[in-house]
């Protein structure tokens, strides 16, 4: 790397970090909505996947990335409604229902692509003009600020937090916990769908099967690591993005001796970072009090 300027490398790394962390940002904000209201959301992965598929499909048909993003949000919303029906209305176990939603998304996307495009799990490639160039990065960061302000400084933000901490108190104040949780889960689907859209029509140019590749779970990890707060969660997403950008840079670099460091070793760096950070570098991370507990109107 000696023949490339340090500044140039730095700029490339920053660009790479911002791009890679964008889908994570959207999804982890979605997770924040849902989990602060008391609903565990491991279905983020599935919501992202279906959002990615819908976005790539609509952007291909309409030639507009904006309509594609809207479709991604819509698809995420639909899947979230499905999830909400089971965990809020019917009080199913949230982990089981979430897993089911992920499987549903993984199965339904190849099925739909077969119907629409005669393919098994991919959509046609989008030309340059039909994809986003940098808009999702800005939108993601604006959403982080909006989310932070909303959760901390608005009455409805207080409702959200109480639904997750002390739902009985909220209910006795005359506010429907069920309704708050429904809104939160639906918002979560919209955000996760947008995260998926940013993956298929911003980072890539088409949908491919299981293209989220665990990003929904990374977003959850970022959320836990960020102690369920918007600011630290966004920083956690950036850290994951940075670890990824760094491992891209470190591949094939000779650190000692004559042989480059094995790819396998370099690629575990993001995970080592995650484990180390979660294992104590950030202090205790406390989940919302009523997280995962279905609310029954008493």
């Amino acid at each position, binding site marked *: 790397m000696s023949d*490339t300027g340090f500044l140039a490398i730095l700029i490339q790394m920053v660009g790479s970090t911002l791009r890679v962390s964008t889908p994570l940002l959207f999804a982890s904000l979605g997770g924040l909505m849902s989990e602060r209201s008391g609903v565990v959301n491991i279905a983020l992965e599935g919501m992202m996947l279906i959002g990615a598929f819908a976005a790539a499909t609509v952007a291909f048909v309409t030639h507009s990335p904006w309509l594609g993003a809207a479709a991604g949000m819509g698809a995420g919303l639909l899947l979230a409604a499905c999830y909400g029906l089971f965990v809020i209305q019917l009080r199913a176990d949230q982990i089981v229902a979430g897993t089911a939603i992920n499987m549903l998304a993984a199965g339904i996307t190849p099925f739909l692509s077969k119907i629409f495009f005669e393919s098994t799990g991919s959509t046609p490639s989008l030309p340059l003009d039909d994809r986003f160039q940098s808009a999702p990065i800005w939108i993601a960061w604006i959403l982080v600020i909006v989310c932070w302000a909303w959760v901390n400084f608005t009455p409805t933000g207080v409702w959200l937090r109480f639904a997750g901490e002390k739902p009985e108190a909220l209910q006795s104040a005359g506010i429907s916990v069920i309704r708050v949780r429904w809104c939160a889960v639906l918002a979560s689907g919209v955000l996760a769908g947008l995260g998926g859209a940013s993956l298929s029509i911003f980072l890539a*140019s088409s949908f*491919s099967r*299981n293209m989220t*590749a665990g990003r929904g779970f990374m977003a959850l990890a970022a959320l836990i690591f960020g102690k369920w707060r918007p600011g630290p969660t966004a920083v956690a997403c950036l850290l994951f993005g940075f670890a*990824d950008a760094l491992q*891209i840079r470190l*591949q094939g670099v000779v650190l000692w001796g004559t042989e480059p460091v094995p790819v396998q070793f370099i690629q575990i760096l993001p995970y080592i970072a995650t484990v180390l950070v979660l294992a104590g570098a950030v202090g205790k991370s406390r989940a919302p009090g009523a997280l995962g507990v279905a609310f029954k109107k008493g």
Partner: protein
Amino acid sequence: MTIKTYVSCWLLLAAFLVPCAFGADFKVALVLDKGGRDDKSFNSAAVRGATKAKDELKGLSLKIVEATDDNAFESLLRSFAQRDFDLIISVGVSQADAVKKVSARFSNKHFVIVDAVVEAPNVQSLIFQEHEGSFLVGAIAGTMTKTGKIGFIGGMDIPLIRRFELGYGAGAKHVNPKAKLISNFVGVTSDAWNNPAKAKELAVSQYGQGADIVFAAAGASNSGLFDAAEEQKKFAIGVDSNQNWIKPGYILTSMLKRIDKAVFDACSDDLKGGFNGGVKRFGLADQGVDFSVDEHNETILPREVRARAEKLKAEIVSGKIKVPDYYQKKK
């Protein structure tokens, strides 16, 4: 016996008999790996060959399945072997263990595996000399680079892909001793064949480091490289299938691996009763590997570069140039 069980017994019997009635067909099963049939590269080539066999050869029926994860191979192969399938074709090195196990258990069935060697009398192993084809596209990249730097993106970090990398680098150095190779891998699990977003980041990073031509052997992840090439107005090189059409003007050429031809021949040989176990090798000499020239790249690939590559091809075939082989190096 109630009516219900009586009827269901008959239905069950019918379900067994109906396939037998059409059992005169020569039945071929094609088992794809995780990249899937739409990877526009490796698996797509196998599908093309098998579909051509179905269309052109009389009395051949075809079933194509995709394994969604690596643990599914063995049960898929077993289920085909248990049924009346005559020839089972496994695509991809990750199926080697499954083929080894299942072929030993069903010694009366014929198996074909692409990209790996399984030693059994009822298994035909189709091996391609990837290093030779990669040498040629490496030589093309080495001739055409303006910055003196070229890139390589591998899918999963396995010896097979290292073989591409080694041949590619050797080809570039052969024509341009000062050429510098930047090499990256998408991942170390089979998810790497299906992660275009990551491949694009790798490509952007390589272009950013000064590479102006990048070759990727990464299955469905290749589309990420092509997006990056289009955005950065740089060149890319495709793999396995002819990928020049995907982004015309940005894909310099594709290193062809004629899996389609090999799969078609395997079907047609077995149909005619000429199945042979053992290893079949495909190299430059029999056009099993090659580089592609078509209407999408003839304007960007200068005539003299093509001529030079053809000359190198002849020299490799005649044995004048020895291309380093990662498989040999490892031993």
